[in-house]
């Protein structure tokens, strides 16, 4: 047993000094390998963390949202619709929601403005997301103007700034009172943006949605489950971002493994011949190649995953946020709460470390089975 362990270690020792010979090549190989794993693992961490955040947000979302569609566009919905929907059996509550977008021509950012009568949302006051505070450079207690369709701008006092930790929900929010909302947008009386419906029994939701649709054919009920599905598809592996990165990483990995698999040089072949002639068994040679593969792929996996964790959860994924930012002026500064999906890490391990190590062993196989006297005949 000790001899077996010692044999493994001796062969590992030789594998390491063998890799050390082609230091430049192997270090660049390692660097590229780390990079691929880093990108893939970052993506896994990033997406699973966002999924968790989305699930938390959706937890608070209403069971059903009713929009009104005219000519394929969302239009304002009359408040009477709300009253009629409230009378449907199984509907517990209908809340009218007033919200919209405000384009800030001063800096090109888009804000989401929501009317909500809460303690801070008194007339003339506003609760804003930290993204808004950053782009408008305002602090609590300061005033800031918003353009209205009329001549007078709407002056608002910042009552609350939501903390950075809620940026993923609220970075671009401006919450003001209903009266200010009407003034800001010159909002038509008797209309709201959409209706949030709560039902007594979630299982009746499709029935309620069907009743609403037949009651008002111009309405579009959006179920909570549909919202969930939307988010699932965004973060699905087939989703645009994920697919793009996944494809490029997998492609480069294949090229890279291919290079390994086909790249058994004449020199390497000669070395295997020498090893065989001085008393190494075929299994010893394969073990050597196995350790050579492991000596690259194992550290690459470990480093890649650890760096990715740091990148996503300590540095907030600067690599991806650039892509997500796109042309947005206002971008949330979120610190993601870490989520580690062990099964995904295992899949990553099996899709990268195992193929690479195999790709190192397989081409040596044929060479390793040559007769030991080949070296003598050359």
């Amino acid at each position, binding site marked *: 047993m000790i001899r077996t362990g010692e044999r493994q270690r*001796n062969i590992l020792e030789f594998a390491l000094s063998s890799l050390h010979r082609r230091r430049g090549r192997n270090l660049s190989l390692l660097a590229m390998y780390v990079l691929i794993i880093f990108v893939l693992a970052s993506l896994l961490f990033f997406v699973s963390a966002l999924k968790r955040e989305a699930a938390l947000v959706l937890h608070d979302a209403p069971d059903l949202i009713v929009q009104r569609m005219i000519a394929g566009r969302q239009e304002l919905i009359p408040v009477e619709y709300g009253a009629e929907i409230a009378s449907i059996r199984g509907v517990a509550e209908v809340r009218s929601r007033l919200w919209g977008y405000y384009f800030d021509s001063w800096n090109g950012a888009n804000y989401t403005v929501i009317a909500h009568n809460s303690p801070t949302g008194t007339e003339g006051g506003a609760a804003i997301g930290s993204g808004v505070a950053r782009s408008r450079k305002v602090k609590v207690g300061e005033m800031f103007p918003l353009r209205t369709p009329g001549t007078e701008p709407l002056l608002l006092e910042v009552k609350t700034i939501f903390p950075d930790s809620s940026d993923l929900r609220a970075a671009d929010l401006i919450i003001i009172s209903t009266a200010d909302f009407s003034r800001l947008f010159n909002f038509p009386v008797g209309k709201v943006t959409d209706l949030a419906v709560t039902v007594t029994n979630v299982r009746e939701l499709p029935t309620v949605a069907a009743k609403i649709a037949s009651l008002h054919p111009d309405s579009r009920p959006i179920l909570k489950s549909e919202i969930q599905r939307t988010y699932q598809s965004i973060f699905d592996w087939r989703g645009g971002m994920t697919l793009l990165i996944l494809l490029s990483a997998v492609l480069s990995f294949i090229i890279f493994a291919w290079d390994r698999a086909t790249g058994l040089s004449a020199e390497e072949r000669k*070395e295997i011949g*020498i090893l065989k002639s001085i008393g*190494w068994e075929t299994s*010893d040679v394969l073990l050597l190649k196995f350790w050579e593969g492991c000596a690259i792929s194992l550290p690459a996996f470990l480093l890649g995953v650890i760096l990715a964790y740091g990148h996503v959860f300590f540095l907030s994924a600067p690599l991806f946020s650039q892509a997500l930012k796109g042309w947005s002026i206002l971008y949330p500064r979120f610190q993601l709460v870490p989520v580690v999906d062990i099964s995904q890490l295992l899949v990553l391990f099996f899709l990268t470390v195992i193929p690479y190590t195999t790709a190192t062993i397989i081409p040596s196989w044929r060479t390793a089975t040559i*007769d030991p*006297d080949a070296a003598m005949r*050359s």
Partner: protein
Amino acid sequence: MITLSGVTKAFSCGKPNEFTAVTNVTLEIPPRQVTVFKGPSGSGKTSLLTLIGCMSRPTSGRIQLHGLGVPIPFQEDTAVPLEITGLPERFLTIIRRSIFGFVFQQCNLITGISVLENVMLPAYTSGERLSEVARRALLLLEQFGVARHARQPVELLSGGEAQRVAIARALINNPAIIIADEPTAHLDSKLSQEFMEIVSGLKRDGKSILIASHDPIVFDSGIIDRVVEMRDGTILDDRSVR
């Protein structure tokens, strides 16, 4: 002692390009002697050495090793002659590693790694502690006067030094029999003489030495006990020199 009886080695059996390298060779090689296999290239001497050295198996005939004094894992009783003809490759490798040391025409050193590691290489797979192997390797390098190069990569060695490192590598597992195939082919006369001196030292240490060569410096050397002359796979002449 090594005994060969009716040993034949054919390549590409049953194919049009079939040829027989060794034909019906019967021979006894006593221990602790220097035996030279002499003959032109293609005379079958290298093939015969690979057969004795457990590198390949004869097509027919038997090869036996007697009184090796080295316990083999599957045959503890060292007094019984060991029939190597029918053994599976795994066992042949074990025998090759523990009983034979090889010196090749080319030095066959692995470039890029140090002299010391090259000498240690045959012992890596035995599961011995590397520190112990390194100690032995350094002793051997000292014995051959190349210890100062131990940490250098092998490419920096001169031809003669490389040859000595190759001999040190052949000796690392303390084999009873040394097999050298055209060891002086790439050496000038002075280095060839030096090589024969090393061989005489090994003989003094009680090793059996088998050399395939057609170099007069080798077979006319005073330390040779026996010359076996070969041609076309058969033995022409087998004479004791002393």
